[in-house]
């Protein structure tokens, strides 16, 4: 039987928890200092409080109550008008210091009677327990407290600076129904935040580490992308999608299959972005809305390129069939980009996606294997959504090289278009189709011409 769920107020975290935390349970939010435990606990508290369903937030000995209020108010989810109306803060640490730790279950009972909360947070519970760390009372107090919270109909969260090693030893982990841990991980100068569901009694959750960010609005979660359960519908293989470049379409039997992923690889200046722009523009003309995900050209720079081809960039940016999703590669995060992109695609109208360039996205990942799995899941998801995707990929060679040697990257795509510079007295750009999945293609290399009218491929 599926238990009733308490939404966290963060839809993507609810997705990770398969709907939220089961109600009337005791849950732990754990992590090192500065990982965002209190922000998450407060966000859940404010999302779930109303005069009919009040919340009790008990601060202890980790930080003074005033700090919780002052810091909490810097986030958009913190509604000061709810405080003392439906969110009740109490300094439990102060009362416990006066009455002793053994009185903790009584103190909490009195508060439950006074406030009748449906949600209760104890932050930090670990700091409270440390008061009696060496004492045999700890287990009794915890047992009594768990009994009180279990007997009363409310969903409880205990917050603490626990480490993974403590999970096996501390009694609170034995009684907890769900355990959510927050982690910080640094790669170079970048810092990545992840959350993980360590335990969710009686329920499934989305496995693995899920990236999250702390914004002015609060915590934003980017669930780890998994391969979709549903397979792409191969009946889709009846429709071709034009790239907007006639010569290129002709090389792959009038365009790529709808729902397929195409990798356009080549060195700098070989025309990868130009093909991407043609592909998106063709979508606009055919009423097939598209998202152009770019990590190098900001909107001004992209508009300049578009204008250079004699296309009306202002009209293109205004067109409802065109979305430009620009992310600076400096602070970009893989999951963040995917979540935003998927949110746009889920809107239902997007038919085409260009990712320019895959290398930037790859650099933003802290783990190569994770990147490959992620991209596989993303392209599979596009296929299920009937979205045709074109990804560019920069190759680090000059005029000599001609293959995509990166197996991980090439395996991600149904089709591979290779661009290169041809040797000779005059450097020429050339295109060759290396691979098309489930289709025939022209094996010959063709010459590309890029002018102020865009790209042209002249068959020979």
């Amino acid at each position, binding site marked *: 039987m599926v238990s009733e769920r308490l939404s966290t107020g963060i839809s993507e975290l609810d997705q990770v928890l398969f709907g939220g935390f089961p109600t009337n349970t005791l849950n732990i939010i754990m992590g090192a200092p500065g990982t965002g435990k209190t922000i998450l606990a407060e966000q859940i508290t404010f999302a779930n409080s109303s005069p009919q369903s009040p919340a009790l937030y008990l601060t202890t000995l980790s930080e003074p*109550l*005033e700090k919780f*209020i*002052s810091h909490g108010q810097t986030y958009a989810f913190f509604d*000061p*008008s709810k*405080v*003392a109306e439906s969110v009740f803060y*109490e300094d439990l640490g*102060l009362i416990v210091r006066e009455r002793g730790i053994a009185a903790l279950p009584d103190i909490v009972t009195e508060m439950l009677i006074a406030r009748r909360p449906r949600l209760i947070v104890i932050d930090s519970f670990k700091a409270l327990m440390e008061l009696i760390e060496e004492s045999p009372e700890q287990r009794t107090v915890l047992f009594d407290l768990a009994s009180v919270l279990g007997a009363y109909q409310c969903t409880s969260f205990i917050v603490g600076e626990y480490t993974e090693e403590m999970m096996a030893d501390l009694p609170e982990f034995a009684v907890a129904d769900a355990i959510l841990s927050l982690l910080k991980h640094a790669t170079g100068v970048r810092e990545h935040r992840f959350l993980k569901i360590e335990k969710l009694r009686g329920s499934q959750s989305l496995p693995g580490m899920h990236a999250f960010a702390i914004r002015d609005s609060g915590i934003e979660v980017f669930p780890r992308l998994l391969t979709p359960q549903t397979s792409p519908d191969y009946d889709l293989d009846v429709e071709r999608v034009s790239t907007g470049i006639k010569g290129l379409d002709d090389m792959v039997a009038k365009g790529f299959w709808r729902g397929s992923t195409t990798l356009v690889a080549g060195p700098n200046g070989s025309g990868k972005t130009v093909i991407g722009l043609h592909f998106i523009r063709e979508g606009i003309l055919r009423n097939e809305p598209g998202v152009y995900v770019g990590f190098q050209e900001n909107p001004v720079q992209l508009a300049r390129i578009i204008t250079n081809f004699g296309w009306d960039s202002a009209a293109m940016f205004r067109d409802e069939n065109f979305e430009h999703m620009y992310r600076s590669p400096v602070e970009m995060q893989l999951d963040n980009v995917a979540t935003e992109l998927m949110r746009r695609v889920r809107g239902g109208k997007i038919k085409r996606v260009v990712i320019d360039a895959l290398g930037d996205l790859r650099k933003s990942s802290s783990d190569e294997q994770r990147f490959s799995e992620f991209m596989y899941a993303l392209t599979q998801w596009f296929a299920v959504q009937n979205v045709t995707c074109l990804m560019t990929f920069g190759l680090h060679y000059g005029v000599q090289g001609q293959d995509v040697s990166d197996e991980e990257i090439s395996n991600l795509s149904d089709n591979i278009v290779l661009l290169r510079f041809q040797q000779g007295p005059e450097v020429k750009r050339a295109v060759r189709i290396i691979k098309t999945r489930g289709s025939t293609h022209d094996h010959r290399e063709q010459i590309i011409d890029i002018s102020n009218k865009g790209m042209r491929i002249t068959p020979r």
Partner: protein
Amino acid sequence: MADPVTRNPLLEEEQGRALILVVERNPVVQRLERFFLEQAGYSVEFASDGIAALAHARELNPRIVVTEVLVPLLDGLSLCRALKSDPETRSIVVLVFSHLHAKDRATEAGADAFLLKPFEEQHLIETVAKLLQLTIKETGA
């Protein structure tokens, strides 16, 4: 709460030191507030929760009640409403002094002024002095 045997707030009020009732849970903050308010020439009494504050206000009739919103049993805004709705305590000036951005709610509750923490003694003393001046003008005291 100060020892009632050694201190007589009513007597201090008679001696020209305006009595201020401060509602504050945290003893550390209480100490700070006592120091600065007494140094400014006021007599100070404390209550650690809203219910005790209401009783003290009725008993001591202070000139000003300075209250945090986040106090146990009866929050500062409810205390303010209770004071302002009781004819016996209606004339007591209420200053809501809180970490919580609650200026509008304090005004709605009938508070005479609102100050946002953190504690800045000069600002608090000036506000208390201004409020006392107002009460003197209004009552002719």
